């Protein structure tokens, strides 16, 4: 049997259509990326919590696959979540990329995998 990864609960959430993070049972601190223990209090007890799915772009870059040049490039972005976490995602509407742009997470397929992608919301549409 394959050993479970610390981040597997996150992907099981994606497959169920929810964006999850760990919440420490000891002190209530949220954390991402997933880790077995809490950096604030050291507890290894935690529960899943559903995130709002909102966020803001802090920075973005174009990712071109170095050897599969025919593959479409992706706009990878660093997203700040209102819960005080950050997440790496890629933008479904790269033409609207901008620092400070508000985004909403959409669980969508890319290259046959369900992923937590983002789309800008608001005036830039």
């Amino acid at each position, binding site marked *: 049997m394959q050993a479970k*990864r610390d*981040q*597997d609960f*996150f*992907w099981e959430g*994606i497959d169920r259509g929810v964006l999850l993070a760990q919440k420490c049972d000891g002190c209530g601190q949220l954390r*991402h*990326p997933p880790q077995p223990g809490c*950096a604030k209090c050291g507890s290894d007890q935690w529960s899943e919590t559903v995130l709002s799915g909102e966020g803001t772009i*802090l*920075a*973005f*870059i*174009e*990712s*071109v*696959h*170095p*050897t599969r040049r025919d593959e479409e490039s*992706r706009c*990878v972005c*660093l997203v700040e979540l209102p819960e005080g*976490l*950050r*997440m*790496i*995602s*890629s933008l479904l509407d790269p033409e609207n990329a901008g*620092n400070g742009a508000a985004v909403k997470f959409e669980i969508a397929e890319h290259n046959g*995998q*369900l*992923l*937590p992608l983002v789309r800008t919301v608001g005036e830039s549409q």
Partner: protein
Amino acid sequence: MSGPGKTAVTGIGQTAYTKESGRTVMSLCAEASAKAIADSGLERGQIDGLISFTMDTNSDMDLQASLGLPMVRFTAKAPFGGEGAYATFQLAAAAIESGQANNVLIFRAFNERSEARFGQPNYGPQGAPRDLHRSLGLVTPGQVYAMWHKPFLDARGLTNEDLGHLVVQMRAWAANNPAAWFYGRPITLEDHQRSRWIVDPVLRLYDFCQETDGGVAFIVSRLDTARALSQNGGSPLVRVLGVQQAWPLGESMMYNYYKSNLVFPEDTVHVANALWEQTGLSPAEIDVSTIYDNFSSSIPISYEGYGLCKPGEVRDAILAGEFGPGGSTPVNTNGGLIGEAYLHGLNNAAECVRQMRGTSPNQIEGAKVALCAGRQCGMVLARE
């Protein structure tokens, strides 16, 4: 804090830096190591410690066999690769100052261009499970680093063209260094801006370090041993005046997206402050520096982190040419990892030693103190 260090770099050795060595990694490692031992003036039997970092794949015992070292009493590995590279000198000092070794060999060798290339995409094995970074599009080191360098660059008003001005200065040094990949090939800003985007809008081709096949090695010795070697016709004494690591909670070596302040290089600032405390020096007393430059965008972050300029002034320093020939804070006089070779940072340490010996191809006249700067580790060398 322990006060100034009691070790010295007595030997340096390196292979040719190529793109296709056609040899085993161990043969490169052994060549660089044998040259370092010969350069130190020590006998093989006097080398009793072996140190590298965890990403190096050379077996200590295979190296021992190849060099014919009769007895190894101390081995250790510093964490990761390049950005922890100078931590190897701290491990050497720890071993020597505590009496567990007398003369330590530090080594790093790989066929990083002709065999396993760091710059190749890492999608993991076929059918690998989804991942928080790779699956979202961060598949190469350039992309991984550009993603967290960008907020710093934005905060300091640094564009890719500004990085181009910096690369021109690095390449001017490399052009005069016969060991450099880009020896005899300086570039203009226009050349830089014409090189193709690799990670738009942060890094173009010329912003990347050189994937390299090769090896580099050092001998670190007790201060009294080093003094005796130097006085008996050896090279000038190059003292490891200070060497420090810092890994503050929240910083990550590669995927550094989750730290509290994206613009503040907390790890580097901790290393720098610890170095100044250990050596009693200040940034103004540094005559020459190397800065770990896996990408051009790494340089301004560390330059500011080590206090070589005030926060917010790094763009002005770049545009004024302070990093290159004739600049007030010469950086990477070997051409750096961008211009000379990528020996995972340790070739920059070799350049610091040459500067202190007075043997750099781009010798800074009268240089007596060198800073060998990495992100989570750094070292101050001084000529005695």
